[in-house]
């Protein structure tokens, strides 16, 4: 469609410089700044790797690679379901829009569960940070205890990079939940917080990390109470931009962190 169709709309405002609506431009600007955050973290990881050369650990066995590959498939599939949700929303198909959004959330949740399981396994094997609580019996079975002590940069950069990404995926699932279910999502979120908090042992970082869900429930509750609204296709499209960005970042984390540090016997 020609730009004139947009620019000819009478208004007291200047026409948009980028030919699109302001919410979308705002999200693009946020994503550009966020890409620099992830860029810096990926550079920090790569810097450590180049500096240490052959001393850099390669802790990911075949099982971890398979797990990370399934996580990647979950994220790629979630991107497909997200574009289908956007497509349904622009066609005014509210039922399918909600179904595709829920499918996207399901894939995102699958990714988080698999990632959490992998973190738990690595921490139990001794790959940990000093800020994490000690796992009972960790010292006896610690395959990576020497890695954590000898090359602390690996655990620091690995947990920061993947943790930051996991946080983004979690917030993305919450964002989509609010767009799909609005106020109905708040009790679900509180239920998920209780399950995540009570079902994880006190020495797990996820026991404390689960409080992100509580904070998100409070923030979303306040936003939905102050400004209740029905989300339209532009809101779904903007939420989709965020979700695809999370997928995009993983396309660099997966090869650089996992595949380049694989230990295939």
């Amino acid at each position: 469609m020609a730009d004139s169709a947009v620019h000819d709309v009478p208004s007291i405002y200047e026409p948009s410089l980028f030919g699109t609506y302001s919410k979308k431009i705002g999200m693009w600007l946020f994503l550009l700044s966020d890409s620099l955050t992830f860029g810096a973290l990926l550079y920090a990881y790569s810097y450590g790797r180049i500096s240490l050369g052959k001393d850099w650990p390669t802790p990911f066995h075949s099982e971890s690679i398979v797990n990370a590959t399934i996580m990647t498939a979950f994220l790629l599939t979630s991107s497909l379901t997200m574009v289908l949700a956007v497509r349904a929303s622009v066609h005014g198909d509210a039922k399918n829009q909600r179904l595709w959004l829920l499918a996207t959330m399901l894939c995102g949740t699958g990714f988080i569960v698999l990632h959490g399981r992998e973190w738990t396994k690595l921490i139990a094997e001794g790959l940990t940070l000093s800020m994490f609580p000690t796992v009972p019996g960790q010292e006896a079975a610690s395959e990576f205890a020497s890695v954590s002590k000898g090359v602390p940069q690996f655990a620091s950069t690995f947990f920061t990079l993947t943790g930051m990404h996991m946080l983004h995926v979690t917030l993305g699932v919450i964002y989509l939940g609010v767009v799909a279910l609005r106020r109905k999502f708040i009790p679900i979120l509180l239920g998920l917080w209780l399950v995540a908090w009570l079902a994880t042992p006190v020495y797990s970082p996820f026991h404390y990390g689960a409080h992100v869900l509580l904070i998100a429930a409070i923030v979303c509750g306040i936003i939905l109470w102050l400004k209740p609204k029905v989300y339209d296709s532009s809101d779904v499209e903007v939420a989709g931009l965020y979700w695809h960005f999370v997928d995009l970042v993983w396309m660099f984390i997966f090869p650089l962190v996992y595949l380049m540090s694989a230990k295939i016997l």
Partner: protein
Amino acid sequence: MDTVQMALAERAAEEQRHHGKALFFWVWGALLAMTAMEVYLTYERMQPTKMLTILLGLSFVKAALIIGYFMHLKYEVSRMKWLTMCSVIACLILMTIFFFPDARRIVELGVK
């Protein structure tokens, strides 16, 4: 939203309507195939530098597909495309200029 914003949102929606579902499934299939190729290369135990080059190349192609088709940037006006991509690439190039010569220096000279 004011009238202009609504017209712009409607334009974006109109653009979305033109894409068939099949295109998205093709892009998804291509992304999965490239991921499978990356995993295959890992099991081939290639020389690290060669493997890194191929993996990064594939990652950039995957990123371009996601940004272009899933994030819809291919169909935005050229001003939007160029400004967003050029600014982020310029920042990443600056980071590369600052970080990597130093990392190489440590490798070549050793930690003093």
